[in-house]
């Protein structure tokens, strides 16, 4: 059972109150009309699926109903930090340069 600290509610709550919403920091294409099939496919379907440090979006569905970000270890499930949308994570993987 994960315990997530909602940065809006400022409370540590159980996993059941939240929905996982996938990899964080995926930028919506600015000019969708000009994307190639390759770029569309990459944007829609390809994820980094990291083993280790992972930045991801969560939705506080049974709480404030807001989205926020989490840095989590996908092997140990340790949660390093939670932060608001628009903020940058403090914990990052050395390999993550993009």
């Amino acid at each position, binding site marked *: 059972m994960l315990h997530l600290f909602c940065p809006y509610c400022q409370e540590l709550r159980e996993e059941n109150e939240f929905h996982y919403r996938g990899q964080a920091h995926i930028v919506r294409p600015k000019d969708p009309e000009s994307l190639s099939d390759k770029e569309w496919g990459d944007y829609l379907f*390809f994820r980094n699926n990291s083993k280790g440090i992972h930045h991801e979006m969560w939705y506080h569905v049974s709480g404030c109903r807001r989205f926020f970000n989490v840095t989590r270890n996908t092997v140990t499930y340790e949660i390093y930090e939670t932060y608001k949308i628009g903020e940058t994570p403090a914990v990052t993987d050395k390999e993550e340069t993009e």
Partner: protein
Amino acid sequence: MSRYSVFSLFRHALSHHENWQKVWRNPTPKDVYDVVIVGGGGHGLATAYYLAKEHGITNVAVVEKGYLGGGNTARNTTILRSNYLWDEAAHLFEHSMKLWEGLSQDLNYNVMYSPRGVLNLGHNLQDMRDIERRVNANRLNGIDGEVLNAKQVQEICPLLDCSERARYPVLGASWQARGGVARHDAVAWGFARAADSLGVDLLQQTEVVGIRRHEGAVCGVETNRGFIAAKKVACVTAGSSSLLAKMVGMELPIESHPLQACVSEPIKPILDTVVMSNAVHGYMSQSDKGDLVIGAGIDSYTGYGQRGSFPVIEHTLAAICEMFPDVRRVRMNRAWGGIVDTTPDASPIISKTHIPGLYFNCGWGTGGFKATPGSGNVFAHTVAKDEPHPLAKPFSIDRFHSGHLIDEHGAAGVAH
């Protein structure tokens, strides 16, 4: 390899079963192989077997970081069926179903294939409409299927609460009589033994840590036991597939999630079929040993820890207790998780890549055990001929760029 038979059993009884031959060799790696298969789960072993048997390619190694069949193959709930909605998936899974039917004889190993029938329950009108649509699609594809009403379901499965006071009322079900279960370990071991006897080297405790290329094409794998040269490398590593792809700078449309199951203490036979429910997310069968085998859903979040989240298994067990009130007091023996490789369309990837000599077979997610023979069979063809098997063609990785997805979220809905 000496064949297993009633006579060999009898002969070995005379020497108190102390002289049975080792089931497979434990070879030291050769310098170079025609094909290195990464991953010694059911799919990797089946690929090796069909490469040797149907394509005469026997200079093959299966490289496994742990022990054979210790990944999802060992962790799954062994349910077999082929009632998928879309033509592409239905043909692929039906190809596998046909292979199950003769597999024990083909491998000379009892895989305990048991066509005991699979019920997919409908609890509301939309479930029933979906069931009708799927069964009709199946029948058009020559796959057996029937739509049953609640009374017929009750006749097939007296244990299930089909009464009007049920928490999750049963309106009907789809029924695939040829579906059922097979013994997971036996499948891995049977393919392993048969492949070994055709000359395939099974290299256990050998982890691939890098994929080496020469002038753009694959030339071998780096392992914890040194470099092994190979003309072709075929990755069949389920939940670890993204990590293999990263070794050559590739990304896959795959996310790895824990998927859980549990078994009860062994009890007397009470359930002789497989019952699954998409809507409440739980399914159950009874093993020949007597354990109730119960499958849950995937954790919503990605993870590589081979255990799942408690709320998920709790949710499933709550549903099972409502569906089968008689088993409420049965104690659970073990619960575990495996890392499943889910794709955006819940269909697998059986594919060449842009790198010559590199192939992937993955994305089977929550439901690839049933496909073990078929997957190995079409993937062996793809690797041997460097051209997709006709049944594998729609499952190429290109579909995530062309848009030709094969959306099986409905038929693959409950995790099995």
